[in-house]
């Protein structure tokens, strides 16, 4: 039988990947109340770029993080300017962004399909199927790198938001746009910056996705559902909550999966979600709205 510790390792490794994928989603919601349904679509786009970078230019996916990050950051800023700025001040803003990004997701999916067909891809760097072995335990290398990247990015982000003037401005803009304007924040620039950050994280996740899970244009729907659940479980908009939620859920589902069988692993997911929502409707780390 597999030991509990090994299962824990596998769960944490999976959770780390989830966390990175979900952070951007959480950030854009937390900061701008944008529920970006296209987040996973951009992730898949990032995965394609990383995949082709490896196939054609022989750039390792871990290296292409450095390309994808800035690239998607800029893409995010441009998109924000074009699409989301006109929505500012709408009465049902989050809903509008949800719909808009739904359309965006479809658009990207279609373009990816037209360019790269619906065939699934998976980059195959040597470490993707390697493990580090410690006695009877092993840690899958790919997941380990992903988790490390995820934690690093999270800490950087958290520090940026909590401790810097710009980060504070981002949070202020999220809470009260008019008030932010009043104290002199160029809210459009700040929002674009935050959106860009969220997108950059999608690009980076894409690089990791490219060698961890097979992908094709339509795959993003599956990812976005998983990510959304994580974000809600942790508490919408709470970065720490997102990470803790991701780790907890991944570990729990891995345990259930090995105890009761994979069929029931998504069930843990939803059962946990249900439970949390009943006890703490605002999520684990969310703040309650009165």
């Amino acid at each position: 039988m597999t030991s509990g510790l090994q299962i824990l390792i596998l769960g944490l490794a999976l959770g780390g990947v989830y966390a990175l994928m979900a952070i951007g989603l959480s950030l854009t919601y937390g900061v701008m109340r944008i529920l970006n349904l296209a987040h996973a679509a951009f992730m898949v786009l990032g995965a394609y770029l990383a995949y082709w970078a490896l196939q054609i230019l022989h750039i390792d996916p871990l290296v292409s993080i450095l390309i994808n990050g800035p690239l998607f950051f800029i893409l995010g800023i441009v998109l924000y300017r074009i699409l989301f700025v006109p929505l500012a001040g709408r009465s049902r803003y989050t809903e509008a962004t949800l719909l808009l990004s739904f359309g965006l997701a479809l658009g990207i999916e279609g373009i990816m399909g037209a360019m790269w067909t619906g065939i699934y891809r998976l980059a195959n760097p040597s470490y993707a199927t390697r493990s580090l072995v410690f006695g009877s335990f092993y840690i899958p290398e790919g997941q380990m790198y992903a988790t490390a990247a995820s934690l690093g990015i999270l800490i950087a982000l958290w520090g940026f938001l909590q401790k810097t003037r710009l980060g504070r401005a981002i949070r202020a803009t999220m809470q009260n746009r008019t008030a932010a304007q009043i104290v002199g924040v160029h809210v459009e620039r700040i929002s674009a910056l935050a959106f860009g950050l969220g997108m950059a994280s999608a690009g980076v996740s894409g690089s990791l996705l490219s060698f961890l899970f097979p992908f094709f244009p339509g795959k993003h729907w599956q990812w976005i559902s998983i990510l959304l659940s994580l974000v809600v479980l942790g508490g919408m908009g709470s970065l720490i909550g997102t990470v803790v939620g991701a780790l907890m859920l991944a570990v729990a589902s891995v345990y259930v999966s090995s105890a009761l069988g994979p069929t029931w692993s998504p069930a843990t997911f939803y059962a946990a979600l249900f439970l949390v929502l009943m006890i703490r409707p605002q999520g684990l780390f969310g703040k309650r709205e009165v």
Partner: protein
Amino acid sequence: MTLLDQIRIATPHRLETRSLILLSLALVLFLLPLLQVVSDGYNYVLHVLMVIFMYIAMASGWNIIGGYAGYTSLGHPVFFALGAYFSGVLLVYRGWSPFWTAPIAGLVATLFGFAFGLVALRTRGPAFVISTIALLLLAQLILDNWEWVGGSNGLSLPMIGWPYRFYKIPFYYGMLLTALLAIWVSYRIRHSKLGLFLRAIAMDETKAEVAGIDTRMCKVIAFAISAFFAGVCGALWGYQQTYLRPTIFLTIGAAADLVLINLVGGRGTVAGPVLGAALRVGLDELVVNQVGSTELNITVTGLLMVLIVLFFPGGIVGALRERRHLPRLLDWD
């Protein structure tokens, strides 16, 4: 008609032109199947209209909780599936026709909606949305593993015994009646106190509560009513598909469809879901049949949505009303 009009106009004209036009439209729809009786070749038309009716019924129902009360439910496919399986199982094991078990299926969905609502409607906002997603996926898991109803392999139903030429007609009428009922109920609620309370809940639930509204009951009732229509539609649809399978019904995509129809047509308005449903199905058929099939279809759909959001917030009905161009014919609020 706003509250104010109720004060100003002593008695609303019973048979104004608008009602006349709408009534004659309904009449035309009722007589349409005659075409298929007179000459073959309209089954496709009937089929498309039937699908439109189905979406009208479900979207109008959804609008009661999702539009008026502002509680976005992604769990409605569960009621759809519940209806389908309820009637389907009765058909397979008992031979009872879904045409008369459909309303019962609707009631079963209502009951279930009521029970689920009691629990889930304690949460608000995104938490509620996700709890409905959880419901959806849990339901899928249960059906997938419940062998008696076919498990993940599904349950196939006997086909309706009518000759091919006419076999769409009963489904057509079933869906038409359901859709009309849904519109009527939606209209009544919009103009009742319940409607006002639901809209108050959508804006500020605490305030509504302090104003003396039993917000929980209102929400649960609205949720239960909206489940009814999904249940009836499921029963009929399952029968005409002859095949029930969890993954056909219980997808986020199907749930998102209802949201989109409402958003495009105009969430929280009576006419919105009707327009949205007609457009959704109509455009879909048009694009698939006329433009041909490329990956770019998806892109076009996506772009269209982006444009609607950017330039028609509040959906079609909302945008027209904002610009004061909403024809009286469509102003059912």
